[in-house]
């Protein structure tokens, strides 16, 4: 009997396999480096353009002429090779992949560490570097060591104001930043998590060092994919052996933070109430989906944020839905700044980089020192905690709002 990773990769844990890549993904950052490597390999044509995506999300629109020139070169290459190309404004690559591109059982390899997000669909999805991507462009294949698997059972129902991000922070804190290195995580259990929740949870699996973070495709998955025009069938779990098993009782969870400067330094929000903030940021491949924006908007609606607040939708589809439902209006009226779909300030390049000694609260997945601003501090939280904190101008719990 096999784990989901073993089934998809067709090999036992510990063995090395060569596998065709169903979806090869890169973006304006890593794609440029992959193209350099591809040319150094003496190549110009992508073997499987039908299975290749290039999505512009990291620094979009370009912030200076150097970036613009690099993006123009990759754009010409991608278009002339006939790949699935998404130019500026379509959204974050992982979000675009989640809107009907990736289906259960696929092998998804991305030149971005958060490619593990697609594990939410029951795909084996993992990140690689740029020359691995160039190599996949060349052959349509890659090699893997089939990982051992850690099982995390998510049991029960989340309390009010506690959400998927708190689950993600909880298990990253539990495993530690290197606790799942070389391993896959399978998330199972009796719960009512929707696709958006699963995407948030799978997204952060790399923060524990994991190679992949998978949910079994079920009726929730299939219904979601049908809504995006794709057919899928559920995956049945088999009895299999895990190297470690953990259970998280969702009913017992409370709102959590990852505090500066480690993703696995996870503490209750209540311990940090009153910490003054210079900026709140809501967005990214972790928490920039429609549900995230809606929860934020429902809390700030009719009120004013008391700290500068940046909200960046994860994709054009998310932005359009937020416009249609009035969520965007609520956000803008609250005093927040809305950016174009993309990664926003997450990687510290533009659209809300912090200054020295400033303190930010972000719904992103990394709070590494200097990442979102040299000399700044970043706390990570859910969009709900971000909303309550934006209204107070300091880290705040729902309990502060009777």
């Amino acid at each position, binding site marked *: 009997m096999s784990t989901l990773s073993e089934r998809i990769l067709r090999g036992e844990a510990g063995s090395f396999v060569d596998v065709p890549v169903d979806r090869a993904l890169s973006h304006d950052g890593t794609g440029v*480096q992959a193209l350099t490597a591809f040319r150094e390999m003496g190549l110009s044509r992508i073997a499987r353009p039908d299975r290749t995506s290039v999505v512009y999300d990291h620094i979009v629109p370009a912030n200076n002429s150097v970036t613009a020139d690099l993006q123009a070169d990759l754009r010409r290459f991608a278009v002339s090779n006939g790949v699935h190309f998404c130019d500026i404004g379509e959204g974050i690559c992982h979000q675009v992949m989640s809107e009907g591109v990736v289906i259960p059982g696929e092998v998804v390899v991305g030149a971005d*560490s958060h490619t593990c997000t697609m594990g939410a669909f029951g795909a084996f999805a993992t990140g690689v*570097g740029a020359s*691995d991507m160039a190599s996949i462009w060349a052959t349509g294949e890659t090699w893997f060591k089939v990982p051992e698997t850690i099982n995390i059972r998510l049991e029960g129902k989340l309390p009010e104001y506690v959400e998927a991000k708190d689950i993600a922070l909880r298990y990253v804190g539990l495993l530690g*930043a*290197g606790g799942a*290195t070389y391993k896959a995580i399978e998330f199972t259990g009796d719960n009512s998590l929707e696709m958006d929740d699963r995407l948030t949870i799978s997204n952060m699996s790399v923060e524990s060092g994991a190679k992949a973070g998978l949910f079994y495709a079920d009726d929730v998955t299939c219904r979601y994919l049908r809504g995006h025009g794709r057919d899928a069938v559920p995956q049945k779990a088999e009895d299999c052996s895990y190297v470690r098993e953990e259970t998280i009782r969702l009913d017992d969870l409370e709102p959590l933070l990852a505090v500066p400067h*480690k993703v696995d330094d996870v503490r209750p929000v209540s311990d940090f109430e009153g910490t003054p903030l210079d900026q709140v940021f809501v967005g990214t491949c972790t928490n920039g989906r429609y549900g995230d924006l809606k929860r934020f908007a429902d809390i700030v609606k009719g009120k004013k944020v008391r700290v500068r607040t940046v909200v960046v939708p994860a994709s054009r589809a998310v932005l359009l839905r937020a416009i249609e439902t009035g969520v965007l209006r609520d956000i803008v009226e609250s005093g927040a700044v809305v950016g174009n779909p993309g990664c926003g300030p997450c990687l510290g390049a533009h659209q809300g980089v912090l200054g020295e000694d400033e303190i930010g609260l972000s719904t992103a997945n990394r709070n590494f020192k200097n990442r979102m601003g040299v000399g700044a501090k970043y706390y990570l939280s859910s969009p709900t905690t971000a909303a309550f904190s934006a209204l107070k101008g300091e880290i705040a719990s729902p309990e502060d709002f009777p």
Partner: protein
Amino acid sequence: MKGTAVRLGDDINTDQIIAGRYLRTTDKSVWAEHAFEDLDPNLSSRLKGSVIVAGKNMGCGSSREQAAVALKEAGVVAVVAESFARIFFRNAVNRGIPLFEVPGGCTCSDGDEVRISLEGSWVEINGERYRALRLSDKMMEIIDAGGIIELRRKGI
């Protein structure tokens, strides 16, 4: 092969190896020049001929291959760690950098002489020999060729 130890701790992330603000270029010398800038601004000058000896989870975080390229361009001979983050591990192999994973870690200080053997899978520091995990044949083939680009260029 041998080099001079540059000792680093646990969970060194790729943002620390090369910061995001230096990524948007194809000029490899920029990454070598600014390597580890946010960790220690003087560190990059010590990388030529060095062996990096890190703790657990070396190279975690972003998939940016510029981190591995920065080390190669700066003249790092090899990287030894108690464990590696897997994307950095693959990137370093693909860039032809010899890697040594030593479970349990090594006793080592900045400036120690570090002798290494990829074929023998060992690391020697101050007369103490540490066994490293053996790389797969595929990884050895890539490192021997000088990296994945050189391997592909030969049509393999």
